[in-house]
């Protein structure tokens, strides 16, 4: 990165070489203004010049987009060629001699710029966004000093501003119709929401069919805003706060993609988050959440002072940090003295940093003296951990995101990337538009099945809960049709296991035809999909919680691994098994030893050598027994033996299954400590509230779904005084632990010392390299993009028999429909952050998607209130009648506490890990007048519990 010389305060300005890098290898040598330059073949003259230090003026060109050649200010002269070709669209050639300046070129450029400026607001530079408009800079660059045409002619200066989008506006008066925004929407985001309407002088940027941006197909990813060279498309915040003065590179705190952003600041205010081009996960792209939805950091409901209360019936009482910490420590010690060492525990946050997570599990193990620590991975990808560890030797995703560029076949199972992992979905769609084939296995017709210029070759709309049956039937096709990559299996896998598995898969009862009665998938489609996966070239599987959140989640993960091994789709770019992680740091929270049976580095607590390493470093004994997982903690609480819980950055009451049981567990505890930004739902049952800090307020690291560790940089002081790691340290010290960290980098040094896969990681290395994919150690000092390259981590890959076992959650006359749950683009998880932003304009309530046939049977119309009832409970919400779901299946999101979708989900869980079976609940849907009694009672309890006593006047 380079600093803008005009900006002494340090705004990060990234170079723009005008056109993308060429992937070709052979070098071509040419001269530019007499200087010899050597660049890869296929490079544009503009880029070659830029790399050599010559900045050719440009408006329609940016290295984020393919060359377009419309603005005509980048013209050059080439010896031996006629005319003045555009340098952005003209590739270099061996021996070429280019002149970037001459009287003729200068004259043409000035003429072009004069015309542009004659139809551009004269006072453009005066407003806060003026700095973002490069028109005047380019005019200066080409030496234009006056516009001879005046402003009296026809122009676009009175065109109305479109400010329908909550985050950015479009001012057509400043637009030069360079198409950068249109191309960004097409090439980068892949939504194709923008176009150029009209012709000639009437040409203009149009969202959808001349609609306001908000009403159009626009998904508000911000790519157009970033691409705009004239501030015609600009963030509203720039006008609200003023132009940015300083910036830092940091990592988004939303999903597991882990986008890198420049956070631009004015004083203590965030002006905007702009995706960073050097971010290895996002390459300069973003989505509506990371780009725009960070306003929750200053939301009025944020709690900034510690609070305590004797019981959850009492209002909260604001206290000093000292009092809150001393009270908490004394309560935990009291509970342990009365009920035993193992009567308390903690939950680490997959939204907090690695360093904070490491400290919370250290607090539990070294301070509480037990292993009762867990994290939200319990309810999302814990089956990935068990399944991929069994088959490959490690659960980590096998690839980096860039790998998708080398895929020929992409399989998406139980994931909805365009909503839940949008920035990676855009990468995936780029590859699909280039011709990669697509198989979608999902009960719903997710957007990827058919979206502009993308259409799945196969969509297998399986019945919820039958992943294992579908995957085993695919294995049947692979084995019985002679599609196994025998050389790979022989060289890389356990042969006895393979033979058993092949014999199992080949049985007639596993054929697609036999399995259809369970799966509902047409056998011909399933056979076609299996053949395409096997024979279509590099094939990569991406999967999400639709695979894991089942009673056979772990089995399904192993079935996926079996397929990848049998077809040799492991160990090189373009292939692999890729779990798409939900939260920003869920990979990291697991790596850091957040599970009750494992220390960091994934060593079981029963291993004396591993315990010894930590005991010597920490000076505290480590319990040799595995601790309680979250659902086990709640069971033990209801039983009266688990009494205290420290919850950092997690809202288990809303996110975990069977809300009534979670509430009963929390209500049975004597000290629940919630450490969070807001009074979340769990806080309704808390006795201590410690205010949390946002990712803007602390240093640290997040680890994304591709094992990439990236720095989070503090840009403002913690509004509540202490960053989360500091608060945890205060509590540890109050419990008698001698912790003296003064910066999170020291925590990372400790992590590296005890975690072999992190041994080469430090803040200094991360700063130097930008990011590191673990494992990073002496053997791989710069990290590891692709895993299992020469051999599996476990040695030889292990095939596991995956017999389909139907879930015990069955439909019947009383509950004839299957409910499955998921996310939507604009909201995130329990919605604690996104509900407190303008993202609610896209989604302000959870809706129940129901097929028209099922709706008609029940007399339900679009938008009607319906009651959703299961064996566990009932709630009400409004219906959305749509054919996206199959008959017999209904779907909703869980972003809003008013809906409480998890009131109806059950306690069934994955056999190996207790990951809840969120994706299958037998339900009935019926017309309703509005909220159920339970919802009203819940709301009453919540508002009663959230009361904060008025603080006493100072003496």
């Amino acid at each position, binding site marked *: 990165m380079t600093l803008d010389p005009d900006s002494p305060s340090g705004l990060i300005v990234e170079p723009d070489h005008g056109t993308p890098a060429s992937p070709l290898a052979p070098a071509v040598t040419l001269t530019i203004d007499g200087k010899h330059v050597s660049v890869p073949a296929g490079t544009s003259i503009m880029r070659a010049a830029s790399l050599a230090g010559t900045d050719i003026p440009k408006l329609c060109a940016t290295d984020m987009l393919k060359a377009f050649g419309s603005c005509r200010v980048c013209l050059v002269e080439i010896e031996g060629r006629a005319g003045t070709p555009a340098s952005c669209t003209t590739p270099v050639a061996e021996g070429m001699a280019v002149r970037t300046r001459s009287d003729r070129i200068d004259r043409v450029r000035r003429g072009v710029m004069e015309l542009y400026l004659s139809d551009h607001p004269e006072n453009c530079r005066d407003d806060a966004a003026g700095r973002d408009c490069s028109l005047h800079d380019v005019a200066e660059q080409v030496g234009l000093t006056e516009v001879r045409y005046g402003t009296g002619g026809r122009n676009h200066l009175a065109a109305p501003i479109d400010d329908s989008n909550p985050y950015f506006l479009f001012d057509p008066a400043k637009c030069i119709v360079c198409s950068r925004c249109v191309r960004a929407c097409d090439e980068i985001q892949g939504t194709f929401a923008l176009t150029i309407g009209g012709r000639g002088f009437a040409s203009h940027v149009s969202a959808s069919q001349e609609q306001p941006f908000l009403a159009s197909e626009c998904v508000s990813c911000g790519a157009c805003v970033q691409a705009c060279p004239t501030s015609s498309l600009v963030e509203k915040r720039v006008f609200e706060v003023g132009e940015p003065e300083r910036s830092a590179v940091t990592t988004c705190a939303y999903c597991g993609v882990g986008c890198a952003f420049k956070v631009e600041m004015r004083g203590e205010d965030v002006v905007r988050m702009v995706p960073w081009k050097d971010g290895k996960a996002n390459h300069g792209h973003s989505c509506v959440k990371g780009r725009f939805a960070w306003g929750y950091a200053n939301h009025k409901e944020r709690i900034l002072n510690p609070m305590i209360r004797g019981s959850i019936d009492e209002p909260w009482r604001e206290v000093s940090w000292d009092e809150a910490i001393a009270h908490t420590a004394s309560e935990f010690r009291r509970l342990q003295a009365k009920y035993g060492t193992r009567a308390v525990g903690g939950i680490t946050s997959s939204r907090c940093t690695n360093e904070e997570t490491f400290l919370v599990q250290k607090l539990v193990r070294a301070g509480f003296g037990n292993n009762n620590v867990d994290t939200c991975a319990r309810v999302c990808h814990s089956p990935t951990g068990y399944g991929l*560890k069994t088959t490959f030797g490690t659960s980590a995703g096998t690839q980096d995101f860039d790998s998708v560029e080398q895929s020929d076949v992409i399989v998406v199972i139980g994931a909805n990337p365009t909503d839940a992992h949008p920035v990676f979905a855009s990468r995936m769609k780029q590859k699909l538009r280039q011709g990669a084939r697509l198989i979608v296995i999902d009960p719903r017709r997710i957007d990827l099945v058919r979206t502009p210029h993308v259409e799945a070759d196969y969509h297998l709309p399986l019945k919820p809960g039958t992943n294992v049956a579908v995957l085993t039937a695919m294995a049947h096709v692979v084995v019985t049709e002679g599609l196994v990559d025998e050389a790979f299996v022989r060289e890389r896998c356990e042969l006895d296991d393979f033979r058993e598995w092949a014999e199992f898969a080949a049985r007639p009862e596993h054929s697609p035809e036999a399995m259809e009665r369970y799966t509902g998938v047409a056998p011909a489609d399933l056979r076609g999909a299996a053949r395409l996966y096997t024979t279509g070239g590099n094939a990569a599987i991406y999967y999400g919680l639709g695979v894991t959140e089942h009673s056979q989640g772990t089995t399904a993960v192993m079935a996926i691994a079996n397929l990848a091994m049998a077809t040799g789709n492991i160990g090189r770019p373009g292939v692999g098994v890729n779990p798409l992680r939900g939260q920003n740091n869920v990979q990291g929270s697991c790596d850091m030893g957040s599970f009750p049976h494992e220390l960091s580095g*994934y*060593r079981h607590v029963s291993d004396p*050598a591993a315990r010894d390493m930590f005991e010597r470093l920490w000076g505290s004994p480590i319990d040799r027994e595995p601790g309680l997982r979250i659902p*086990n903690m709640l*069971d033990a609480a209801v*039983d009266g033996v688990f009494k205290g819980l420290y919850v950092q950055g997690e809202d288990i009451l809303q996110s975990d299954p069977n809300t009534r049981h979670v509430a009963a567990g929390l209500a049975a505890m004597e000290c629940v400590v919630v450490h969070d930004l807001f009074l979340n739902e769990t806080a309704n049952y808390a006795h201590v509230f410690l205010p949390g800090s946002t990712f803007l307020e602390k240093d640290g690291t997040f680890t994304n779904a591709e094992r990439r560790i990236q720095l989070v940089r503090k840009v403002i002081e913690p509004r509540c005084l202490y960053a989360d790691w500091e608060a945890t340290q205060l509590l540890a010290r109050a419990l008698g632990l001698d912790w003296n960290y003064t910066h999170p980098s020291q925590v990372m040094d400790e992590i590296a010392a005890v975690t072999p896969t992190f041994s080469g990681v430090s803040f200094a290395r991360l700063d130097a390299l930008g990011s590191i994919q673990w494992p990073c150690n002496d*053997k791989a000092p710069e990290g590891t993009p692709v895993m299992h390259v020469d051999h599996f981590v*476990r040695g030889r890959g292990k095939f596991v028999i995956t017999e389909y076992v139907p879930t015990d959650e069955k439909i019947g006359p009383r509950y004839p429909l299957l409910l499955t749950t998921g996310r939507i683009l604009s909201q995130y998880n329990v919605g604690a952050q996104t509900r407190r932003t303008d993202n609610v304009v896209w989604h302000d309530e959870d809706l129940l998607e129901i097929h028209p046939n099922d709706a008609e049977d029940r007399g339900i119309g679009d938008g009607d209130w319906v009651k959703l009832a299961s064996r566990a409970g009932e709630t009400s919400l409004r219906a959305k009648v749509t054919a996206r779901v199959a008959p017999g299946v209904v779907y909703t999101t869980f972003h809003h506490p008013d809906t409480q979708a998890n009131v109806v989900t059950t306690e069934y869980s994955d056999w*190996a890990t207790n990951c809840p079976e969120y994706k299958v609940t037998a339900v009935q849907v019926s017309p309703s007048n509005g909220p159920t009694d339970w919802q009203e009672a819940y709301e009453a309890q919540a508002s009663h519990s959230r009361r904060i006593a008025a603080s006493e006047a100072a003496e």
Partner: protein
Amino acid sequence: MTAERGQDLAAGGTARSGHTLERLVYMANQIAREFGNQRPGDSVEATWDHLWHFWDPRMRALIVSHWQSGGEGLVDIARAAVAKLASPQAPEPQTKATEFNRAGDHEDGRDLMSDAG
């Protein structure tokens, strides 16, 4: 070590756990059924190993105590596995899922266990 674990088990059990016990029996049967399908030859050992490595002392104590009083509801594989759990012996790891990294066991830098979610 194994003897001490046995003592922990004895100390862990408590009453008031009807719902929990029902769940534990259900979970043990679920595990047993999977290993019965996956590895018919050593499903009891695999189930034992799983319970030993993933269940906390109180959960193990509850299921052992339930087995000692008749073990109602436990399927055969689960019943045999819980019987083994009641002994002070530690199981040999049956699956790589429970054969964890050991400290100092990282000579090629590739033993990368992860349970991420």
